[in-house]
């Protein structure tokens, strides 16, 4: 089974800070990581390949430094990795990004001389949180999709996906080729072992630019090819001045707050 895994390099959102003056991210000193949901997708891909054979190819769209994210995927089992990076791609919203990635997937198939049976990704990236790019890739490629996977199994050339629902889960079967997005899996992504890690450091990550995507329509890429526009951004203000009781005995404080809640008609 040949599998393409789409990954994104993201700032570790538990570490990020916003500049209160400019309302922009303070990137200095913030570690970049592979989107955690994507690491599950990669682990699922590598396990499927270990069972069924084939190749696992990682692609990532981003600035040149996102090559590091691709490299780290090579260290944990991906066979090949490509960075999709071009000046015309900057400022793309989800629709433009998914279009570029769908063109890149076709270009990578041609380069590798394979066709992908499965395209995997995380359910969403933790920086944008949109969950739109993978379903849009499926739409561009005309493929069926299953989102929010909690488990993936191959059975007689079909996939069985355990899909997260509000109060339980569904088992969905889908014929291949297909696009699947992953929430988490019953197992953890592996850590790189020393050999593959050293090996990955020596690899050159091929970069595909607009020039390498033969059929790409550049009017559908970048800021100009994006239907959504960010009009402004701001830091949320959350500052209340509530009644905070400190150094008051527990039963006294409790009776006081309970009384206030009753008085306010809340309980």
């Amino acid at each position: 089974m040949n599998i393409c895994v789409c990954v994104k390099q993201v700032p570790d959102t538990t570490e990020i800070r916003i500049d209160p003056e400019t309302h922009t991210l303070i990137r200095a000193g913030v570690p970049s990581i592979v989107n955690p949901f994507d690491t599950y997708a990669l682990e699922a891909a590598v396990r499927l390949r270990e069972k069924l054979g084939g190749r696992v190819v990682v692609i990532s769209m981003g600035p040149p430094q996102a090559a590091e994210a691709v490299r780290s995927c090579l260290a944990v089992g991906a066979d090949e990795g490509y960075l999709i990076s071009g000046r015309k791609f900057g400022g793309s919203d989800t629709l433009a990004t998914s279009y570029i990635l769908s063109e890149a997937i076709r270009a990578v198939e041609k380069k590798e001389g394979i066709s992908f049976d499965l395209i995997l990704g995380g359910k969403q990236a933790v920086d944008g949180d949109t969950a739109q790019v993978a379903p849009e890739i499926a739409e561009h490629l005309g493929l069926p999709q299953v989102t929010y996977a909690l488990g993936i199994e191959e059975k007689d050339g079909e996939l069985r996906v355990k899909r997260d629902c509000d109060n339980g889960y569904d088992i969905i079967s889908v014929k291949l080729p297909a696009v699947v997005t992953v929430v988490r899996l019953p197992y953890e992504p592996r850590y790189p072992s020393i050999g593959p890690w050293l090996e990955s450091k020596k690899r050159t990550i091929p970069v595909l630019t607009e020039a390498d995507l033969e059929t790409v329509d550049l009017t559908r890429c970048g800021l100009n090819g994006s239907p959504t526009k960010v009009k402004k951004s701001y830091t949320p203000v959350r500052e209340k001045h509530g009644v905070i009781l400190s150094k008051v005995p527990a039963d006294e404080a409790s009776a006081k707050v309970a009384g206030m809640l009753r008085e306010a008609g809340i309980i």
Partner: protein
Amino acid sequence: MTNLNEYRNIWVYIETECGKAKNVGFELLNAARPLAEQKGCELVAVVIGNSIESAARDAICYGADRAIIVDGPEYEYYSTDAFVNALVAVVQKYKPETLMIGATNNGRDMAPRVSCRIGTGLTADCTEIGVDEATGNMAWTRPTFGGNLMAVIMCPEHRPQMGTVRPGVFRKGVYDETRTGEIIHEEFHVAADEIRTKLVERVQEVADAVDLEGAEIIVSGGRGVGSADNFRQIFELAEVLGATVGCSRAVVDAGWMPHIHQVGQSGKTVAPKLYIAVGISGAIQHLAGIAGADKVFAINKDPEAPIFSVADYGIVGNLNDVVPALTEAFRKLKA
């Protein structure tokens, strides 16, 4: 180029399953009603499902002027192909200016495929929707970077303008059974072989059904609770108040509580009358999920915990003393 003037009205997608509407569609109707007044346009509910006449009727009572329904046995359960094909067909026929969709797992599965097929923009997980005065475009506000930054997004040159909103961000309006409105049946069917996924089995974890989104009072525990065992105190406090039990992500990661109880950016978005946060420090991802709460009551041993900056009421102290004392205080009040 799209002729923008052809596109009129605000549509709200009403998600159904087995004929029953999910609340988020009705919540969106309530949020969209004033926007329709402001734009001087109609508010239309679009309902896809099986035997959904009564869901369409409810949508009108919750504020829609009209309802368009696509009804058929193939829509009994959600499938990407059937629902996307049906929604795209009615959107292309009627040309709404705006389309809002509840950001359930199914809504988030369907919406991007619809926007992509039509070639328009989609803003995910909005927490506020307004009309931009200068242009008349929808202004969609959404959190990014884990709630650290808010962005206002517009889609000026493509229609419909699409956005999703998570359940619990807005509240349902009053059900007004005197409201009337036309229900339009659209015959649109999807052949079985066009649906490329198959629902093999559904497993409902009924015993664990937790309705955080609809809860009036939530008692939520964080890492400060200390252990899975200590959650017993949280449940006792919740029981006295008739509250639903929530928790922070740290608690789920530690394995003390299942994910279904999680409140915050990667869990549920909630809008209770009262949110009691016990031993929750108040990471921004958690605060993003409770922004809709009327009142926040925080209990924490650390007076510097960020949760106190959003709290209406707070007690600084040891949870093992405060939580049982509170349970007792509420019990007395209720007696």
